[in-house]
């Protein structure tokens, strides 16, 4: 098992803390005069995506996390698991619902996703930055109705909900930003 001292912490290093894998964002060395030195570190929990600040005694060691990001193609969902395939090895991986929390509502099949593997198991699935999906339900939208800021709710074929401009109709394809869950443009097949 690889261990790292706090002085080796640098942006991008993956470590394990309290049983969870974290990505190091920032590491600041703090030392009062003649006293004990500390490392004030900003880290992102790779399970929850939450960023926290943690202070370590300088020189303390932590275990490294075997975490890698691999691009994989989403294949299908079988009711409990989401299945992905490595494009070169054709090896298949399946993710449970927790790693899919952000991704599930944007995927319908064949999208290339970033799968973060921890000990070779999917920890987090990040959908493509934008996806093209069909609108399955939305009100016709009244021309000249500006009370809603010129947008209306729409449900997409994957079950996701976004706000779309009034001119978008049921059955149309739209391009959506998955990071902000916002409408980008009309989509093409």
């Amino acid at each position, binding site marked *: 098992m690889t261990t790292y001292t706090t002085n080796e912490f640098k942006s991008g290093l993956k470590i394990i803390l309290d049983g969870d894998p974290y990505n190091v964002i920032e590491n600041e060395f703090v030392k009062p005069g003649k006293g004990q030195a*500390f490392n004030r570190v900003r880290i992102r929990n790779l399970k929850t995506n939450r960023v926290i600040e943690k202070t*370590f005694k300088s020189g303390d060691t932590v275990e490294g996390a075997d975490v890698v990001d691999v691009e994989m193609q989403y294949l299908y969902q079988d009711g409990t698991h989401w299945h992905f395939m490595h494009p070169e090895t054709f090896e298949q991986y399946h993710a449970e619902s927790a790693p899919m929390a952000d991704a599930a509502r944007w995927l319908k099949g064949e999208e290339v996703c970033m799968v973060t593997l921890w000990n070779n198991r999917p920890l987090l699935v990040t959908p493509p930055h934008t996806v093209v999906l069909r609108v399955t339900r939305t009100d016709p939208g009244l021309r000249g109705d500006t009370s809603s800021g010129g947008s209306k709710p729409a449900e997409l074929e994957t079950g996701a909900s976004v706000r779309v401009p009034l001119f978008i109709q049921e059955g149309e394809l739209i391009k959506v930003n998955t990071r902000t869950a916002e409408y980008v443009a009309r989509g093409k097949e």
Partner: protein
Amino acid sequence: MRAARSEENCDWRPRAGRETLRLRAALKAQVRAFMDARGILEVDTPHLAFHAVPDPELSCFSVTGSRARYWLIPSPEYHLKRLLAAGYGDVYSLSSVFRDDEVGLLHEPEFTLLEYYRVGWDARALAEEAAGLVARLTGRPDGVRFIRYVDLFEEALGLDPLTVPAEQLWKAIEPERRPVGIEPDDRAALCDFWLGTVFYPRLGERETVIVHDFPAEAAALARLDPADARFAQRFEMVVGGIEVANGYHELADATEQALRFERDRAHRRRTGRPDVTVDSAFMAALRSGLPDCSGIAIGFDRVVLLAAGQDDLASTLAFPLAGCGLEASA
């Protein structure tokens, strides 16, 4: 070790802009004029020493020569005190010092220290003079606020850091902010945590703050208060949230100094730091008699940083180590 870099990928250009270097040079000239006007003598002391220092939290670089092993000085203190003991009067040094394992926004392994001594002065008088110098150099207001070390804790936490059970200093930290690797009963480390990561960053926004009367355990080379031995006549100067200086009414008692060295060495052994040998020339100088004096070490690069309004020490240096992939070399 760092892999050799190809020439194409090597950023050879200086980090600090010419304006910053010009400011740096002007501030050095100001320091020298200030010292000269007060009859304080600039001396060049060696950078190579035969002994490291026993400070519990300090690592020196060792240098292997063909005839001997040397250490790069972490401060010119021992040499300057030998000059004081020899009767050379007020002296100062403005020069590079070296500390291993200290890299960060406010730390460079090689940095410039302004260290000076005033014979016959007490800590308060020196703190006031030095605060005036720093204010002048940084172009900040002249005001100085003195606050006792324990009062920082009393004001913020309502706790006396020296008498409460150490666990209370631990419990006062929000659970998710508690430092990893520190034991809840390690009073010294917890005091350092509060001081360095919580209190100092908030201090000295408008005025210069002098934190004084450090606990006796953190006396380093300061003498203890003759009226109350729980405290040392040591102070630190904080400006704009940054600790810029550390000063003492100097300990002149050689026997007490020898005891502290042994205590520090024992601490180093306990915490797994390499042992050090005691500098016998420094000890002999103390035994022959150090005049009553106070001394201060001012982080010159941090003064430049404050004067230039920057927030990264490396940007005040032409060729910082931190900017050259030092972090990546581990």
